[in-house]
């Protein structure tokens, strides 16, 4: 007999309550009830008074958990205090909100936030598994030090004392530039800002973070094209697109929740095109898939433009009014990128090129999405500009549904780029010139001369530091060839993995040569293992000291995070820092104290007690940002405004991100007009109530409603050609309808608007421009009173004359499988002292030609992402829920290429590259890649050319899954503007591994 039982609150009459009854008796009774013929199905139903959905009003709160996350936490059932903390996924830049349910301080449960306009409750594998961070089983639990090849536990005091003593010693011997600081895109805005301040007070520009090896080419290329180096629109806005071209973005795996918006858009008729060397999961959803050869984006994009110009599909009025230099590009494209040349270089036949051009042109507004497929090349800066030019030609920029939707990487890489540790700028992209230093000296409440004295000399203050992609050369390059006094002697990995930078073999040597290596990370495992594994004895610095410090994750502190669409979200603290870990800003403060500038560092902040120790208040750090980063509109996002947005997510429209009006019940803050997360630029003071900018450069809106135009950042004219926008193309309601330059006190006075400033504002604004006027008065008057944009109204630049290739030029990768094309499209000449280091182009390419590497390594090697893992992968490979889903590092290889090598699916193979590295991975035979291409996910570490590094991990902190890192084998190659590493196009050979 089978009974139909009720699953809901049904058995109130029959079932005992959860407590006060032994489970044994309960199941015994249940068992017997199964045997009693009297209990028929209808009787069951009758008892089921309540319907499901009403919910267990009371027992809803009875939350159970399996095990205490950390030692010493009691396992309680329903007894404890239950709180719901709203936070944001720490994995990618989509910025999916999460409700964390915390019981007695233990993170017991995770609920979707349906109200979030960004993700509507949706998550990919990583976001749906973040609660594992609350277990932290495989984390570093306490500070450790490498002693005789083994990591040993030490106390925090010992660690900080020893580290700071060693640093001061190095500083004395070699100066502040001997230490290299690798910050993190995982840090909150507050922490990454504090990191830049910290390094400045240490007296150096030698700091960097993931953006260098991620979107640096985008940021530089795009900012130089039209003003800001950021995604112009938003994931949500793609719902307004009629056609979307993804080139070098595998959003389905790298930004899964963005597909929520795209697929919805697609159902409403938006066409989708994917251009990629691989038939990705994104391509599987596309209407048109175009396979190009890795590294040939410019031929493709200019091939597209060729058809656009040839058919007159460009937006002529838009180009005339708002774009500079398009005529030159047009000439070059029509002459140089004829369909035969395009096909030769990127492999796409004319008919398909025409089709794609037609789809983009006929379905406007059309948007263009790019990501790492474009950025990670030695010509990345040119590739991204070519994409910009396509969008400018079609008149798609500054238009809802159009735009350059540049999907950023880490959860806060946008924020860390905006206000974090960059070697060539201060927060807010203020260049490292004296004026900026003075601006920030004021904001930080310290003397400019004091900062100056911290540096080795004034020259070093305005010299961009070494980049994270090249720190190994900072250690190993001949001293006379580098553009700073000392070589690098110490490196601090503060939230960054090592297996994400290229040339792994050399990195190992550089690590061994250091005097000091400090890793501050919840999961320092890959760096730790790499440092501990024996290398070449002659490289090992006898005095080397290696320390691991356990950092807290972003769930263990609060702070703001900037998503790809420039929206800021405030994370509440979910749990106390696990084990002995401490938050990054606490560690910065404590280290600063030991290094002698603690007081200065936290001058403007109140302190709060965490685990009984002082920690700067994140809100106060954000307020300092609000008071200084005018240039990119990080000033309107006060903690209060951000928090009210987080509490009232339901208030914002999913398609436009605009508030539907209404007041925050807690503070009474009026949300009317705001865009969710006040996407930067959110100009002026919080009191100005700028609503944030949902789509950049959008002239159809008033500047006080998030509208804008292209930035005047490159002068007003060049060689007699007007660089300002043409008449009538200003933003809606602007008092000045012509093009105009950016605002400063002079312009304001000229226009007769000066007197609209208050006296207090006048005092602060005198002699200043809108970026340095700490009163915000210039912004207020210009924008609010006159509807003009403070950064002026100019044209976007199709020709960026200050870059090596003003008009983007295709150049073959340094390591190419096509000598014929290298001959036609050779790389740049070598550079001396570029970001303080000599940088090779031609030398290497010529040598490769001479050595015939293309015959020895006939396959293109490219790399990228899997949904389940993130970045170097230490965090995600330590999460068993994710690790179970990807247990082996593998190489995707076409069945044809595999067949030629006698490789069968699932077999072990050796992938070798010209660096001499050989990595042992599993072969995955798939037509996803063409016969000339191999692809390897880059998230693995923990195996080194066939050997398992398990023995070298700190005890208990090895990730669940280990595998070969592709970057052990990647080659030399750097972008000619930003020093981006060339990870997406190199060469390899694959051989069957005979056991």
């Amino acid at each position: 007999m089978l009974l139909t039982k009720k699953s809901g609150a049904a058995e109130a009459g029959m079932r005992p309550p959860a407590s006060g009854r032994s489970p044994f008796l309960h199941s015994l009774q249940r068992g017997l009830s199964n045997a009693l013929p009297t209990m028929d199905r209808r009787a069951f139903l009758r008892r089921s008074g309540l319907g499901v959905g009403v919910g267990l009003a009371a027992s809803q709160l009875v939350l159970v958990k399996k095990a205490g996350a950390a030692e010493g936490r009691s396992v309680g059932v329903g007894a404890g205090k239950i709180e719901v903390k709203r936070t944001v996924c720490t994995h990618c830049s989509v910025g999916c909100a999460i409700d964390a349910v915390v019981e007695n301080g233990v993170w017991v449960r995770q609920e979707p936030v349906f109200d979030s306009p960004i993700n509507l409750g949706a998550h990919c594998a990583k976001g749906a598994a973040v609660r594992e961070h609350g277990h932290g089983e495989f984390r570093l639990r306490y500070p450790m030090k490498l002693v005789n090849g083994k990591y040993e536990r030490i106390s925090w005091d010992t660690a900080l004392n020893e580290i700071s003593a060693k640093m001061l010693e190095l500083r004395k011997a070699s100066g502040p530039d001997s230490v290299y600081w690798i910050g993190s895109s995982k840090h909150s805005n507050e922490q990454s800002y504090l990191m830049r301040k910290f390094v400045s007070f240490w007296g150096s520009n030698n700091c960097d973070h993931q953006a260098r090896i991620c979107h640096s080419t985008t940021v530089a290329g795009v900012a130089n094209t039209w003003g800001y180096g950021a995604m112009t629109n938003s994931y949500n806005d793609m719902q307004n697109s009629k056609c979307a071209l993804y080139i070098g973005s595998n959003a389905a795996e790298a930004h899964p929740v963005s597909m929520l918006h795209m697929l919805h858009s697609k159902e409403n008729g938006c066409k989708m095109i994917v251009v990629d060397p691989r038939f990705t999961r994104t391509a599987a959803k596309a209407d048109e898939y175009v396979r190009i050869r890795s590294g040939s984006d410019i031929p493709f994009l200019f091939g597209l433009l060729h058809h656009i110009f040839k058919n007159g599909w460009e937006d002529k009025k838009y180009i005339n009014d708002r774009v500079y230099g398009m005529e030159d590009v047009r000439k070059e494209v029509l002459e140089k990128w004829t369909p035969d040349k395009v096909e030769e270089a990127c492999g796409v036949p004319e008919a398909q090129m025409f089709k794609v051009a037609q789809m983009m042109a006929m379905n406007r507004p059309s948007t263009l999405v790019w990501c790492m497929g474009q950025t990670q090349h030695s010509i990345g800066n040119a590739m991204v500009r070519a994409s910009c030019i396509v969008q400018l030609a079609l008149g798609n920029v500054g238009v809802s549904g159009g735009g350059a939707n540049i999907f950023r990487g880490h959860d806060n890489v946008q924020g860390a780029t905006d206000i974090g540790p960059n070697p060539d700028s201060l927060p807010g992209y203020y260049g490292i010139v004296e004026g900026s230093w003075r601006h920030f000296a004021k904001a930080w409440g310290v003397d400019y001369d004091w900062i100056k004295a911290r540096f080795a000399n004034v020259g070093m203050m305005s010299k961009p530091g070494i980049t994270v992609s090249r720190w190994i050369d900072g250690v190993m390059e001949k001293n006379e060839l580098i553009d700073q006094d000392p070589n690098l002697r110490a490196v601090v990995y503060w939230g960054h993995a090592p297996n994400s930078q290229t040339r792994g073999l050399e990195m190992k040597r550089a690590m061994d040569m250091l005097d000091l290596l400090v890793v501050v990370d919840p999961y320092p495992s890959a760096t730790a293992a790499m440092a501990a594994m024996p290398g070449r004895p002659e490289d090992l610095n006898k005095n080397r000291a290696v320390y691991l410090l356990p950092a807290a994750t972003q769930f263990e502190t609060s702070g703001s995070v900037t998503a790809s669409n420039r929206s800021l979200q405030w994370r509440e603290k979910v749990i106390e820092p696990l084990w002995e870990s401490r938050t990054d800003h606490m560690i910065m403060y404590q280290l600063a104290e030991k290094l002698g500038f603690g007081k200065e560092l936290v001058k403007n902040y109140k302190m709060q007690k965490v685990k009984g120790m002082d920690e700067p208040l994140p809100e106060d750090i954000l307020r300092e940002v609000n008071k200084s980063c005018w240039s990119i509109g990080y000033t309107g996002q006060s903690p209060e405004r951000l928090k009210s947005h987080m509490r009232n997510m339901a208030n914002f429209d999913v398609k436009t991100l605009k508030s539907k009006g209404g007041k925050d019940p807690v503070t009474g803050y009026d949300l009317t007009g705001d865009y969710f997360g006040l996407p930067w630029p959110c100009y002026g003071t919080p009191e100005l109530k700028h609503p944030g900018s949902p789509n950049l450069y959008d002239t159809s809106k008033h500047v006080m409603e998030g509208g804008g135009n292209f930035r005047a950042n490159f002068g007003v004219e060049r060689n007699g050609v007007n660089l300002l926008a043409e008449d009538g193309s200003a933003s809606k309601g602007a008092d000045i309808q012509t093009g105009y330059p950016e605002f400063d006190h002079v312009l304001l006075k000229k226009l007769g608007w000066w007197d609209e400033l208050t006296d207090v504002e006048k005092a602060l604004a005198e002699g200043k421009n809108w970026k340095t006027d700490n009163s915000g008065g210039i912004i207020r008057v210009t924008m609010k009173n006159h509807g003009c944009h403070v950064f002026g109204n100019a044209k976007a630049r199709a020709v960026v004359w200050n870059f090596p290739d003003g008009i983007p030029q295709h150049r073959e990768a340094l390591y190419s499988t096509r000598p014929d094309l290298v001959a036609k499209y050779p790389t740049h000449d070598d550079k001396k002292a570029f970001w303080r280091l000599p940088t090779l182009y031609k030398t290497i390419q010529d040598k490769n030609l001479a050595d015939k590497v293309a015959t020895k390594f006939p396959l293109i090697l490219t790399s990228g992402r899997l949904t389940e893992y993130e970045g170097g992968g230490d965090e995600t490979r330590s999460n068993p829920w994710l690790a179970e889903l990807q247990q082996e590092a593998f190489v995707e290889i076409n069945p044809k290429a595999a067949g030629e090598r006698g490789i069968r699916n699932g077999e072990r193979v050796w992938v070798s590259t010209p660096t001499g590295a050989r990595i042992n991975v599993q072969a995955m035979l798939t037509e996803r890649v063409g016969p000339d291409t191999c692809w390897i996910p880059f998230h693995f570490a923990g195996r080194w050319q066939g050997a398992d590094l398990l023995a070298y991990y700190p005890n208990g902190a090895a990730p669940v899954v280990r595998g070969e890192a592709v970057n052990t084998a990647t080659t030399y190659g750097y972008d000619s503007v930003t020093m981006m590493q060339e990870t997406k196009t190199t060469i390899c050979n694959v051989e069957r591994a005979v056991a």
Partner: protein
Amino acid sequence: QDKGRDDLPPPAPAAGASAAPQPGGIQGQNIFDVKPEVKPDASSDPKYLEQSNGERNRVQPGNNAPMWRGVAAGREGFTNYPKSEAPEAGVLIQPPVQYPGSRLTTAGEAWRQVRNVWLIPYGGALLLIVLGALAIFYFAKGPIGKHGAGEGQLKIERFTPFERSAHWANAIAFTILMVSGLVMAFGKFFLLPVMGGLLFGWLTYFLKTLHNFTGPLFTVSLIIVFVVFLRDNWPQRGDLNWLLKGGGLVGKSTNHEPPSHRFNAGEKIVFWGGVLVLGFFVVSSGLAMDKLIPGINYDRQTMQIIHMFHYVSTALMMCMFFGHIYIGTIGMRGAYTAMRRGYVGEEWAKEHHAYWYEDIRSGKIPAQRSHPHAAADAPILGEQRA
């Protein structure tokens, strides 16, 4: 309206209506607007039905019929799980099969039909019928044979201690397997209603575990039994006669068993048919269900087939050994004691195994085969009453 015009082609659309919207301006365009191309319908391609999904999508975008057909046919897709951990994770739906007695449907459902519609009811019925027949036989005829094992002067060793321990090990294992197997197969019909789910679950869990571990023991003992008794089970003089007379149960000369050697033809049938043939199927299928046989891919469909083999062969084996057990216990006087103690008397031997008795009398076969000290516990004849 006009029936007569059905055979005419439909009227041509008004000029212009069919013209493609000219690509001009920058308006949006619906992706579902299929341009009127003068192309034959894709399905007229003779290879239409063999197209892969990719090929089909090229001629008919959005038509994924080939793929769904593949899914329904059990085609394997890609999953992230390693084959070693989840060998069948890539199969969305088990492929269709038709097992004897089932419809053509997914393998799991087909197996369910075979098991639930045929094996359980008919197997159960068969076992009941055999049991019933034995009961009727018993009540109609009573135990066969006039003599208990102890009667007569000479004490003859019928089974050596080794033979006996092998047999009993085997018999005990069999009994455990039978009881546990029966509870697994039929318990829910007769035990669950009286015991209730939980107790029944525990009992069955215990029995199932016991079954799983006893099976291999049974296998070993069965092989020993087979080897030990092989010599005397070869067909011999008189077997045919014994069979024709139905062991003395049919025909006029009832109650007089035809002569036989050490084992009669009936026993030999049990030996060859039951111990060897069915034993082989039971043991091999059983070991396979225990996943003890290397080299087999233990996927679901294999398990279904093995299970059906196991079930059928165990049911038949049970039927056969019900008979054996019946004769060996209450069905025949003296039989049980013979196996229990190892010795029979002259009368018993004469009555049931006349040729064997002759061979013993003639000394061809020693009356005592085991070393006496090994038979220290041999009973004093005459003490026993079977």
